């Protein structure tokens, strides 16, 4: 085989062919572009999230060999002495960090990090520039108790000039900080949060009443004789272990990044899976187009074969053409994907912040490798999609291909293989559902979803034939369309398959999101009983868990009309290596005003158990994910040691993806020594207006910093707003898949239109009117739409079931009550049908415009 000449033919011939059949080629291109764009957008957003997080982490912590950090609670600063005197430690430095609200700049906040510039010199990845003096007077940084360094973007945004002061509030402490230094991250820390601010550790401790506390310890180690630090680190860890507080987590700093990746993993996998569906739908379309192309160019391929082109070259020619087109599609897709990523950025950023970790993304970070990956995925998809029709074309004997006649409508392919493949996919769906649920390999849940989608795809041609078995519409164009649809099933089968995949996904996701939202809404209605809620604004803006001003509780209790004040403290930590949320409430208030929905309990009253002893209540998803039931013990690491807590009850909760461990406030305070509160829930006397009390509280709290005071309805709206934002990307991807499927309809009908030029010519010559042709093709589109949508509808329910009962259960463990969103489903069905008919218009119009003579003329 000789590659070069094949390539020559391909370039001189295939290229010109592209331009001769622009519409088909462009649709093909578009299908791939959308698929690649979806992948690029999601990958880029995911990548940006991780890189931004890492850059912020690196900026704060540098790149140490060893870190100790307190999870949930701060560390005592004396801990640093353990490292300072250890021979393995070359350098050790503390950091303390907090999120402070800026009362004079509503909506903004500082992520303030206290550092020791004397001991962090080898670790720092930023540079401080004295904005007041040159050369830099570094002494001011350590000796003046109010000096801070801001990033330039933040300083510009807040209109702060060097020397200006900035009022910052955290946990009831207010400080006037003076902007003196500019914080310049080193160039590789692209994407670090510009809310970062640096001050001397003494400044942070003394300004915010945090004497004696630090958040992290970073250390550089001395390599051993072989120049490695792994062994040094583990022996250091062994030495330190007996002296570390229970809640301290020590080890390599990569761990932290990995934990975040793990935390975001489910979220990102979800998005990635959805983006791949767009590509899968795109693949169907490519197969379809290539098959159409091959059919159209049958004679031409026969000629090339007769002139001595061998079979492999035929495959190379066809796959190569498809790849060249895909190359263009991938390029466009990358471009488009990056634009989409920019649009998605804010939504993903807020979602990650409200569910996982503080994250602020300003612009996308483009990783050339992942772009290349997405491009290659597009090429691979196109290559695979073209392979099958190409192989088929190569098997056609040149002699047959050269026979004149209508080559397009071949004898229909047998049904049984499709049915068998469909059943096989169904089997895999069940298998992977089982592995996700019972073998606890959550990721296989996505394979189950893919399985059901493929099962639907394989069913499409079979179902199309069934549909064709029904009597045809009793008009001429109806009869024509009916037979045309049946004869065109070899082409329509693929379009219907693509359509059914897209519809199934759209319907599945719609049902799932709707059910989830309805469940959460109902739960909010049942579980939010208080009339007013107060929280520091930073917790909403920045997703922080900063404690509230302790005075707020006193103020609220003293406000007339207030009957009771419930308190809430929330901490994020790792239990047995997986993230979890620890919360503390005044359970007596909860019981009296806002009882929990228990799913199972120990004998006795769970509230009383928790108020009296070391008992805890856990959320349903906490129980499911960790396989814990009432009576079991959970070990809670705190600054005072690891405390065994017996599970008193399981309750329903939707506030934490990772699961919630709820304690009574007295137990929490006794075990953790943490007096902080994250928010207050205020219950009013009957007949008192929440608005009046809310306004009064807002007024009283104003001088103490920035607070958010919500009414019951306001909190519900806020919760649902966060919910909707979390699914915004899902909705967008759903739309993309539907758009690709609609393109498929156009593509399929355009291809058939080209194949049937002669046939249409004959029809026209024998007296069919333009309108009849137009109608015929539109009815054919309706057949196609009905096939795809019917299968998609049924499969959609199965997809919803898998999303809720397999993927949700395996990853999150929530209970989602089934709610069928009939109006939305009807909307999708009608919308898709209309999309099909609209998609058929261009090819139908073109076919009806053909002049009979031209159509009959042989090429």
């Amino acid at each position, binding site marked *: 085989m*000789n590659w*070069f*000449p*094949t390539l*020559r*033919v391909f370039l*001189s*011939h295939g290229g*010109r*062919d592209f331009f*001769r059949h622009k519409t088909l080629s462009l649709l093909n291109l578009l299908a791939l572009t959308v698929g690649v764009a979806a992948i690029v957008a999601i990958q880029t957003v995911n990548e940006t999230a991780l890189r931004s997080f890492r850059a912020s982490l690196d900026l704060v912590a540098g790149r140490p060999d060893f870190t100790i950090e307190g999870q949930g609670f701060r560390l005592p600063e004396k801990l640093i002495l353990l490292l300072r005197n250890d021979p393995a430690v070359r350098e050790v430095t503390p950091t303390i960090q907090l999120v402070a609200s800026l009362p004079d700049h509503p909506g903004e906040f500082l992520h303030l990090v206290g550092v020791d510039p004397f001991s962090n010199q080898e670790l720092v990845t930023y540079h401080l520039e004295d904005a007041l003096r040159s050369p830099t007077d570094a002494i001011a940084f350590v000796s003046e108790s109010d000096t801070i360094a801001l990033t330039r973007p933040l300083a510009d945004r807040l209109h702060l000039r060097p020397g200006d002061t900035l009022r910052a509030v955290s946990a009831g402490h207010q400080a006037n900080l003076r902007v003196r230094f500019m914080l310049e991250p080193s160039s590789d820390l692209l994407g670090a949060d510009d809310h970062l601010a640096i001050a001397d550790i003494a400044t942070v401790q003394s300004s915010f009443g945090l004497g004696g506390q630090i958040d992290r310890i970073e250390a550089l180690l001395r390599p051993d004789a072989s120049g490695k630090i792994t062994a040094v680190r583990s022996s250091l860890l062994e030495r330190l272990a007996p002296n570390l507080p229970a809640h301290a987590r020590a080890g390599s700093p990569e761990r932290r990044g990995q934990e975040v990746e793990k935390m975001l993993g489910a979220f990102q996998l979800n998005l990635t899976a959805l983006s791949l569906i767009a590509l899968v739908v795109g693949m169907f379309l490519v197969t379809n187009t290539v098959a159409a192309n091959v059919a159209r160019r049958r*004679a*031409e391929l*026969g*000629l*090339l*074969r*007769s*002139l*001595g*082109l*061998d*079979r492999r*070259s035929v495959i190379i020619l066809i796959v190569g053409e498809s790849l060249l087109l895909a190359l263009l599609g991938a390029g466009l897709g990358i471009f488009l994907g990056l634009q989409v990523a920019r649009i998605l950025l804010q939504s993903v950023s807020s979602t990650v912040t409200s569910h996982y970790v503080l994250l602020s993304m300003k612009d996308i970070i483009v990783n050339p490798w992942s772009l290349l990956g997405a491009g290659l995925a597009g090429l691979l998809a196109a290559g695979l999609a073209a392979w099958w029709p190409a192989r088929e074309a190569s098997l056609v*004997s*040149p*002699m047959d291909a*050269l026979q*004149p006649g209508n080559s397009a409508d071949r004898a229909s392919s047998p049904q049984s293989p499709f049915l068998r493949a469909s059943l096989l996919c169904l089997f895999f769906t069940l298998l992977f559902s089982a592995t996700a649920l019972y073998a606890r390999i959550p990721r296989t849940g996505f394979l189950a979803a893919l399985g059901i989608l493929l099962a639907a795809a394989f069913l499409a041609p079979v179902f199309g034939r069934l549909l064709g078995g029904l009597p045809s519409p009793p008009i001429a164009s109806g009869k024509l369309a009916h037979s045309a649809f049946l004869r065109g099933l070899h082409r329509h089968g693929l379009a219907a398959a693509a359509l059914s995949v897209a519809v199934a996904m759209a319907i599945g996701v719609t049902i799932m999101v709707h059910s989830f939202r309805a469940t959460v809404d109902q739960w909010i209605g049942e579980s939010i009983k208080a009339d007013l809620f107060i929280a520091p604004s930073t917790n909403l803006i920045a997703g922080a868990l900063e404690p509230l001003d302790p005075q707020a509780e006193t103020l609220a209790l003293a406000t007339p009309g207030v009957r009771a004040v419930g308190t809430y403290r929330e901490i994020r930590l790792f239990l047995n290596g997986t993230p979890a949320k620890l919360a503390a409430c005044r359970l007596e208030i909860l019981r009296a005003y806002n009882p929990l929905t228990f799913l199972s309990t120990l004998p006795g009253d769970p509230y009383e158990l928790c108020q009296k002893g070391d008992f805890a209540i856990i959320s349903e998803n906490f129980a499911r994910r960790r396989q814990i039931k009432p009576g079991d013990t959970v070990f809670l690491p705190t600054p005072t040691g690891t405390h065994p807590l017996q599970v008193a009850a399981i309750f329903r909760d939707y506030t934490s993806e990772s699961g919630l461990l709820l304690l009574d406030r007295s137990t929490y305070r006794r075990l953790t020594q943490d007096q902080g509160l994250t928010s207050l829930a205020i219950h009013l006397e009957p007949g008192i207006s929440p608005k009046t009390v809310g306004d009064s509280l807002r007024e009283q709290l104003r001088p103490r910093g920035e607070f958010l005071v919500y009414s019951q309805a306001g909190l519900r709206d806020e919760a649902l707003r966060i919910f909707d934002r979390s699914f915004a990307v899902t909705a967008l991807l759903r739309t993309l898949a539907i758009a690709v499927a609609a393109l498929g309809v156009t593509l399929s009908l355009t291809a058939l239109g080209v194949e049937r030029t002669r046939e249409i010519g004959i029809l026209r010559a024998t007296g069919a009117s333009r309108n009849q042709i137009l109608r015929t093709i539109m009815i054919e589109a309706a057949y196609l739409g009905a096939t795809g949508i019917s299968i998609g509808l049924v499969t959609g329910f199965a997809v919803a079931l898998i999303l809720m009962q397999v993927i949700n259960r395996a990853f999150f463990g929530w209970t989602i009550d089934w709610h069928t969103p009939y109006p939305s489903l009807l909307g999708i069905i009608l919308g898709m049908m209309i999309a099909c008919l609209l998609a058929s218009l261009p090819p139908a119009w073109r076919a009806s415009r053909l002049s009979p003579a031209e159509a009959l003329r*042989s*090429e």
Partner: protein
Amino acid sequence: MLETRDLHKSYEAGEARVDALRGITLKILPGEIVSITGPSGCGKSTLLHILGALDTPTSGQAYLEGHPLHSLSDDKLTALRRLKIGFVFQFFHLLPTLTVEENILLPLLLSGRVNSPARTRARELLATVGLSDRSHHRPHQLSGGQLQRAALARALIHQPSILLADEPTGNLDSTSSSMVIDLITRLARQEKTTVVLVTHSEEIARTADRRIALVDGRIQS
């Protein structure tokens, strides 16, 4: 040169079985111009396709310059077509996207032999078939006779040892027909190419050195 022994070919057409060839034994010498005639469905195109390595017999043997066409793999047959065989079809089959000259060079392009002598030869052939002024036109700008003359040039560009023509004048008017047939015979003699010509026209059959008449898949003697 070309030899067949007891060649049989049958097709499955739905339920029915069609025996297109029922034992053809023939010998064609180098440089000979042979016509195959017969009524529709007598198997003449099938025979031509087997001789042209486009199809394989159900049984019997066929040899082209000693190559056993009945037992070669598709790749080998493809290679033979590329090097030794030239085709002229009833429906011309020029690629619409290529110019006349590119179409003529196509066989050489496929075997990677396009060079300047090849281009010179293409131009000479174009001149011979009277299409020098049409070399950069696209097929749709040409008349049927011109198309077939271009197809003839393409069939001869790689100096095949055998030229197979399947109803080359089937789609042409009589003026164009005689022009094409004249060219085929003239060029074949000039280049010493063996020609097998399938036709149902008595007139054309008479221009051949020898005539083989087929009826129902057998040679009529």
